[in-house]
């Protein structure tokens, strides 16, 4: 048997080799995880994990929202709802630099109030916004980048799967943490809007603007066509907040709603409809392959106990509180290169949380920071699930490189928000303090 550090080095070398060779990402992570488990605890254990992980991961009600929301996005596009939304947005805000990317950000933030998963948001808006934005002349990178980055807003704006998991692991109030995410989520959206403005100002060709103003009559007439998307969003968001269903059911309701609108608008050509379903299946299949592989990789890392060992070593140094915070962020960032945020939280929080609160950090604020770090890890290479989702769900030809280049400026904006949260913790703690 190999010691954990040696095994980890071998495994990371294998992942790097496979990823660079262009092997499928899920396969790369999965094989590396299996090799790591074989090296450290034996092939029997590795095979047992391979026997349980794929089925347990897919046979899940909670994750069923992913294909259903992807379907909703495709159906909404088929119904022409998004074309109408972006047409209206074009009429109203296209004189503003980056107006359509801003529309995507705002719509994604609004939809974040219904969806608790960043994957869902990224997939829905790739389906809906990507074709429209590129059709109206926006660069692929800005389009894909703003979709992938805005998708992460779903993790901060309640409801949020990540917040709930943080609350359970750290035994904090789910309700308080969900409230705490609201202002930081909106702040992030605002920073993105400003960022888009600046980006387009400096580089106008990525978001072309019409030469002359659009007449008011045309603006007003385009508004009457947006009812479809407004109805769909109201159905999903209103249904959750009105207590008609829990977020886990929102996918089915949203898909069904979009399906009905497709029928009402007489856009239900059998061939197109079949293609819509087929595409939702293919996209889900490719995303889940990555999730399964990533899960096996995370299991290997968990077995080694490396994360706990490293954290404990750092914590033993007796550093000032801020250094711990930086260590926490760094750890998140490094782990985020390969595994997804839920696994990172399970690995890091049991060790880091008690120490961080002991040196004086507020547990609620820390939850917001953890989710912010998770958002960032979802759009950083090499493994950035949101970036993969955009690449995979895109109806417009797109390379991973396009998306990663597109999100790069948004990573900078995320870092800025993170800094604001550290300098002004009240952004996260004020609302919970008056609510609780």
């Amino acid at each position, binding site marked *: 048997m190999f010691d954990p550090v040696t095994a980890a080095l071998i495994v990371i070398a294998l992942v790097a080799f*496979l*990823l*660079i*060779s*262009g*092997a*499928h*990402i*899920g*396969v*790369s992570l*999965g*094989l590396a995880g*299996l090799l790591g488990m074989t090296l450290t605890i034996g092939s029997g254990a590795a*095979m047992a994990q*391979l*026997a*349980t992980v*794929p*089925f347990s991961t*897919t*046979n*899940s*009600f909670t*994750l*069923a929202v992913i*294909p*259903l929301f992807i*379907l909703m996005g495709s159906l909404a596009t088929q119904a022409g709802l998004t074309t109408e939304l972006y047409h209206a947005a074009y009429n109203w805000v296209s004189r503003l630099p980056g107006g359509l990317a801003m529309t995507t950000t705002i719509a994604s933030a609004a939809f974040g109030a219904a969806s608790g998963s960043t994957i869902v948001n990224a997939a829905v808006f790739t389906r809906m916004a990507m074709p429209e934005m590129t059709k109206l002349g926006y660069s692929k990178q800005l389009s894909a980048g703003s979709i992938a980055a805005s998708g992460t807003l779903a993790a901060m704006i309640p409801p949020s799967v990540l917040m709930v998991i943080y609350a359970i692991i750290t035994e904090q109030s789910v309700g308080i943490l969900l409230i705490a995410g609201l202002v930081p989520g909106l702040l992030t959206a605002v920073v993105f809007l400003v960022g888009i403005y600046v980006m387009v100002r400096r580089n106008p060709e990525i978001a072309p603007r019409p030469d002359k103003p659009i007449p008011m009559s045309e603006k007003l007439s385009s508004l009457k066509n947006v009812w479809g998307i407004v109805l769909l969003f109201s159905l999903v968001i209103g249904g959750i907040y009105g207590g*008609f*269903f829990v977020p886990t*059911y929102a*996918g*089915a*309701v949203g*898909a*069904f709603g979009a*399906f009905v609108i497709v029928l009402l608008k007489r856009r239900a050509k059998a061939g197109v409809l*079949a293609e819509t*379903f*087929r595409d*939702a*299946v*293919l996209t889900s*299949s*490719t*995303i*889940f*392959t*990555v999730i399964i*592989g990533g899960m096996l990789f995370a299991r290997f890392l968990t077995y080694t106990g490396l994360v706990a060992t490293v954290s404990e070593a750092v914590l033993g140094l007796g550093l000032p509180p801020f250094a711990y915070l930086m260590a926490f962020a760094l750890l998140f960032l490094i782990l985020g290169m390969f595994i997804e945020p839920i696994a990172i939280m399970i690995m890091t929080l049991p060790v880091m949380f008690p120490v961080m609160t002991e040196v004086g950090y507020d547990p609620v604020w820390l939850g917001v920071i953890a989710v912010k770090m998770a958002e960032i890890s979802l759009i950083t290479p*090499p493994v950035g699930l949101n970036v993969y989702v955009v*690449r*995979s769900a895109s*109806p*417009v*030809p*797109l390379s*991973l*490189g396009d998306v990663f280049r597109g999100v790069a400026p948004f990573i900078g904006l995320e870092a800025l928000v993170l800094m604001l949260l550290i300098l002004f913790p009240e952004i996260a703690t004020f609302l919970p303090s008056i609510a609780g």
Partner: protein
Amino acid sequence: MLDRAQRIIEPMAFLAVLLGGVGLMISMFLGMGDVIGSLFNKPLPGALEVTESTMVLIVFGGLAYAQIRQRHLRVELAYLQAGPKLRSVMDIVASLSGIVFFGLLTWQAYNEALFSYQIGEATSGLVSFPLLPARIAVVLGAGLYIVQLCLDLLKDFATFGQPKDFELG
């Protein structure tokens, strides 16, 4: 020869996706039905369990066809820069690693399906729903994917070093 094999596999892969699509439609209607039923205090029993099983059908049903359509996620960065020979080598690595991983996965999934059959595995809820179909979906879906990967591997060897198209999206 390879072309003929491809012509046999493709409809099967398409059928698998179709089944996934039907599963997706079922989970959409069931979820909606459960929500509406719950409003009238009559939730649909088994909606959750059936939805879970259709998820398996969706994920594993789509594998082979996603391969045919080159939809699986990979880091294309180096691939796009590479010349024809290097591309062939990379394709071979991709096919081989996929065959190894999904080969092991299918082997394990087959054992699990067998065990599921022996114990009559079913969900526990107000209604009892058998899990064997979902277990079999894993084996068949992943198995079909392996067949496609093998075929791609043979094609990789047969056309080694020839320039090939690579389409994004």
